[in-house]
């Protein structure tokens, strides 16, 4: 028994990827147990391991945590990624909840039917460049600091980098009008723990390919 957190999910980004990012940014090694078939999920349910019969589930500190936001909150708080006081945390939470909304759009893109994909992509790009990115660009411009909140690394920085990279996968030049986000991206990518996570062979997952979708859907049927 290793004492390391153990992540239960499929071998895909989905609703576990942000948790992987936070653990990696905190320098915490973790193990992964990948669901490959419907039976794998059924077994976990039968074990009573899944409070609401759903994954993600993370075994950590003697708990079997479910609900990706609850898991992310616990990790962020435990590893001091929530700012120095309640007001910094409030700002971080606002930033992070909005990023989760954008992430959700990007995550759902892979599952759109072919005839809806183009419109969906246009919606992602519109929201990213008109609603979300300008907020972070302005925050960085206004205070001129390296990190989004309180002049120190927080989950907001980790999650913003995660989202920027996924957005670039959708549209490579999506940051063209956001010079501060470009330098933010370079800067945060160079933090040692994050640099390590961005290297090949890390536990970071690749974008879900269309051919993987049927297999993934089968697990959750």
């Amino acid at each position, binding site marked *: 028994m290793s004492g390391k957190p153990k992540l239960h999910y499929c071998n895909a980004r989905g609703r576990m990827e942000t948790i992987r990012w936070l653990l990696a940014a905190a320098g915490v090694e973790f193990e992964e147990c990948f669901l490959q078939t419907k039976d794998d999920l059924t077994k976990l349910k039968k074990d009573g391991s899944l*409070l*609401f019969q759903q994954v993600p589930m993370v075994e950590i*500190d003697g*708990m079997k945590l479910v609900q990706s936001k609850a898991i992310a909150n*616990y990790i962020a708080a435990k590893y001091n990624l929530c700012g120095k006081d*309640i007001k910094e945390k409030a700002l971080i939470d606002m930033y992070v909840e*909005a990023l989760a909304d954008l992430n959700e759009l990007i995550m759902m893109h892979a599952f759109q039917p072919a005839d809806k994909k183009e419109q969906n992509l246009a919606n992602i790009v519109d929201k990213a460049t008109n*609603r979300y990115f300008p907020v972070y660009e302005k925050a960085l411009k206004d205070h001129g600091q390296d990190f989004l909140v309180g002049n120190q690394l927080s989950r907001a920085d980790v999650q913003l980098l995660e989202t920027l990279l996924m957005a670039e996968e959708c549209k490579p030049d999506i940051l063209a009008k956001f010079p501060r986000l470009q330098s933010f991206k370079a800067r945060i990518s160079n933090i040692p723990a994050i640099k390590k996570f961005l290297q090949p062979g890390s536990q970071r997952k690749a974008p879900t390919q269309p051919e993987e979708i049927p297999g993934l859907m089968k697990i959750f049927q």
Partner: protein
Amino acid sequence: MSGKPRLTYVNGRGRMECIRWLLAAAGVEFDEIFLERREEYEKLIKDGSLLFQQLPLVEIDGMKMVQSRAILSYIAATHNLYGKDLKERARIDMYVEGIADLMQMILMFPFSPPEAKEKNLDSLKERATNRYFPVFEKVLKEHGQDFLVGNKFSWADVALIEAILAVEEKIPAVLSAFPQLQAFKKRISNVPTIKKFLQPGSPRKPPPDERYIETVMRVFKL
């Protein structure tokens, strides 16, 4: 200027109701602004009051907070409704997130097409009685305490009672197989701040009606 939190939304439950519940449970009085016209919403955006151009908006402690979960976490943390340590907080978060998934079904209900309504009601009943309520029934049975987490009133209790009452509005006998939840409902309804919120004339909003749906469609251009 009153110093009270100020809530800006449309005059109905939507994504603000859980915030009203939590403030009320914490014994915090608040003011409300209700948007009726699209122009009022556009003005808020132009003013820069809405960080991500969305509501709910809660002005509290000098901040213009948006994103309902961020707002709820802040209120819970500043009013001792978030457990005594990180592990209790994790438990509360899990329960609250599960309940939020259930409440999402209710939130979307008024906006589903008429032909989907029966199917959605069946889904709601299935999820409530098979996935969510059994969890809380078991938690209460196993520890035998009055409150869900840490033997103390918390955000989790507020979220659960809100959900129970909301589901009962659609499925009146939904708690018939859950004696612990029936007792919980009675007990929490009698917590003085909750009891006050459940009385007529409180800021609690009625279930969505035609007028509410029209207002939402108009203000948010859906």
